[in-house]
């Protein structure tokens, strides 16, 4: 199709072709939610050129140059969901250990472990997640026998061989009850383990590392160098209020640490301190059970209360049974909380931001991912209704402006078992 100029008001529906390369297109007649915290705009337009968003907002009657116009007849358009701290692409079946690369219990290495090379873009978890409207994710390893789980990656969920957007995007360390067990049996031990590792890494970076006396392997000491220097983010799993305070205090010795806290069930109890520190949080928003002694104060109002206090909070850390494609359900629940007396929730716009622009920004991709704004990657999802509503699902998914297939193992099974008729041939021939 050749480029042409037209006035948006005069456009009629053009069927969307299947494309494999980034294509320039304009989505019209859309309910546009930009993901930046603002409320949705009806009659909106999204213009994509060269894999980037050029414009997203109300139709102003402006002229645009494009290959393709997609009139979505009032359907919703959002940035793709950004799933923070997942394990997609690292396992085919969680319970099948041969297929599971999330942790390395017997490896001599820990901080040096780097998931980027092990992510399988063809895994069904990625395909299922993509169909759910999730276009980007941070993928984290799980701890093996150290509090350092290793380095996570930022990926896209596109149906192409090139999944990794940013390798070694962060280091993940586990504190609290889990970290205490890994470090030898107590929080006292995990605190020393963390401080010692950071000191050794700093010594290594300064050329003063005495390898024979060190606790870290050479590879692990090298890997933690960027963390100590604040050049690589340090994600820290932590839940209890007192553990959060202890961590924030650690910045006094290691001032350059670029910390992101993950979990944070009791964050609302220290929301002021968190806000003052500027340390962002990735929280599981529906955790409301005292499932451990470090989560006694867990409540679904945690995210809302931290947000009100000025903490930058993304929803994430959803793995295994609770799937990244359900992040929108998690976000929607926080909107529902607004109507529950004494609860703290999020506005609709904030809720969408908590699964798009905020996790992107926490990943260091503010303005580049997770938002429909000029210059951002054209990760665009068209939904058949309010994206946070249970009844809604994606109709089109674009990543970097490339339209994505919406088929996977599940949709093929669905199609095969649309009926149970085997009168002519067994089901195995229906494909």
């Amino acid at each position, binding site marked *: 199709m050749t480029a042409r100029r037209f006035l948006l008001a005069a456009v009629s529906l053009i069927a969307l072709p299947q494309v494999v390369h980034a294509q320039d297109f304009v989505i019209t007649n859309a309910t546009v939610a930009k993901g930046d915290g603002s409320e949705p705009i009806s009659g909106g337009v999204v213009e994509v050129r060269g894999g980037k968003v050029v414009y997203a907002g109300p139709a102003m009657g402006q002229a645009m140059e494009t290959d393709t116009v997609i009139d979505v007849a009032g359907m919703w358009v959002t940035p793709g969901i950004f799933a923070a701290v997942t394990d997609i692409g690292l396992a085919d079946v969680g319970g099948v250990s041969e297929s599971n690369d999330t942790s390395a219990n017997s490896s001599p290495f820990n901080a040096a472990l780097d998931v980027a090379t092990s992510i399988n873009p063809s895994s069904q978890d990625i395909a299922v997640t993509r169909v759910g409207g999730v276009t980007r994710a941070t993928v984290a390893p799980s701890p093996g026998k150290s509090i350092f789980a290793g380095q996570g990656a930022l990926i896209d969920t596109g149906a192409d061989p090139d999944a990794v957007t940013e390798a070694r995007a962060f280091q993940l360390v586990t504190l609290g009850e889990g970290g205490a067990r890994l470090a030898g049996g107590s929080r006292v031990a995990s605190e020393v383990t963390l401080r010692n590792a950071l000191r050794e890494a700093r010594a290594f970076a300064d050329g003063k590392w005495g390898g024979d006396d060190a606790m870290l392997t050479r590879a692990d000491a090298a890997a933690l160098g960027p963390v100590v220097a604040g050049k690589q983010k340090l994600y820290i799993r932590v839940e209890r209020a007192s553990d959060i305070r202890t961590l924030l205090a650690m910045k006094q010795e290691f001032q350059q640490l670029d910390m992101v806290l993950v979990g944070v069930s009791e964050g609302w109890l220290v929301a002021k301190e968190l806000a003052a520190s500027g340390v962002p949080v990735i929280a599981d928003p529906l955790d409301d059970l005292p499932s451990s002694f470090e989560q006694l104060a867990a409540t679904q109002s945690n995210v809302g209360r931290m947000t009100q206090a000025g903490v930058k909070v993304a929803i994430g850390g959803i793995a295994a049974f609770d799937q990244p494609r359900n992040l929108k359900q998690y976000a929607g629940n926080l909107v529902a909380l607004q109507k*529950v007396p004494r609860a703290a929730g999020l506005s609709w716009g904030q809720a969408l931001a908590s699964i798009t622009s905020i996790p992107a920004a926490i990943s260091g991709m503010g303005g580049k991912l997770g938002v429909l704004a000029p210059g951002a990657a054209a990760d665009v999802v068209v939904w058949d209704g309010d994206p946070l509503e249970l*009844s809604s699902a994606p109709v089109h998914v674009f990543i970097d402006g490339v339209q994505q297939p919406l088929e996977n193992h599940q949709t093929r099974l669905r199609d095969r078992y649309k009926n149970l008729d085997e009168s002519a041939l067994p089901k195995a021939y229906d494909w």
Partner: protein
Amino acid sequence: MQFRTLALLGGMIALAACSTTGDSRPGTSSKNAATENGAPFPSTYKPYPGVPTALVGATVFDGAGAKIENGTVLLAGGKVVAIGGPDLAIPAEYTRIDGVGKFVTPGVIDIHSHLGDYASPAVEANSDGNEATSPTTPEVWAEHSVWPQDPGFSRALANGGVTSLQILPGSANLMGGRSVTLKNIPSRTVQGMKFPGAPYGFKMACGENPKRVYGGKGRMPSTRMGNFAVNRQTWLDAKKYAAGDRKNRDLAKETLAGALDGQILVHNHCYRADEMALVIDMAKEMGYKVSAFHHAVESYKIGDLLKENDICSAIWADWYGFKMESYDGIPENAAILQREGACVVIHSDDANGIQRLNQEAAKAQASGRRMGITIADADVISWFTRNPAKAMGIDKQTGSLEAGKMADVVLWNGNPLSIYSRPEKVWIDGALMYDYDNPKMRPVSDFELGQPGEGDVK
């Protein structure tokens, strides 16, 4: 959160993978194994006081497939007195509650819960769901593991509108033991929660868990064929016992005889379609009936067979892929089953999921709609009200809003199939047990007293 999940996947798939089967026939025989030995540990539950209450103007889903706009529901004496439209007369002594713009459903029922037997906090000391020392333990009763102070019960009430639930043993064993059906009512004792007159359930498990747990200990079963061999021999021994005078008490065989009598409902954890088909034939060979397959992620492949055998599928909306036998789970499972005319139950198996059974049902409904299967809201509501009641054998007492049934009722602040809705008030046997407008009208377990977050909205 992730640690807990990982723990499940690594060492304790049994917890996530526990399942139950239930018999859809409520016990009617006089030869009731559950009671003939003196009905030990009897229910001491008595409904709390309520006032005659009229819910006026809400959209009412009765749980049995009907929807009434601008409805009226009358509750008194612990029972549903009447249900109707705006013309239904409201006696003067009734307290009126304005339901305009709101929705009323029967109390939510979870057929598959481990609240109390895998209580919060999830520490080893509270891990009481799997007697994983023998592949067949029909002699254990879940009620002896239930800790009534599990804070999870209150979350299920306030966020999920859950009024009745079945607590099952886990799925480490082929035969996990008896389940117990509870009213979701705080109590000092488990007897104070037991659903009066509910039949017992009997938990069985197919597939990966039993063969992994016992194969890993170097003993039978270590294969699926081993699973069936152990099951069949155990049933044969039980049949011999059941055919005798039963005077020599044997706790294991009393449970199995109760299942053979149809008095104890069989709930069978089973993921794969081919295995369910084998279980159906095993049940026919031995003379018992499966009430429900639990975690039945592949039921959509055999909806015809399940309908023909009158077996419910207790399922999640979209869980899949966490273990090999869950690899073929699809979000359209419920809708395809419904189209085949088979019985659908949405279950949780999870202390978080039990707070959102309505949301899971709504997702399953939407997945069906996108493949061309339209299911009315009123039918979807029955997936977490009447249908589980039927599979648990308590549908004569609860599960739908009909005159004479228990006044187990939820008033929602919007359509329960919308993400934006929450329970506003919950009645159990006509007593108001949760009211989101009243900070004191929410249960706080002993465990939470004096702790951070006591009495919070959660």
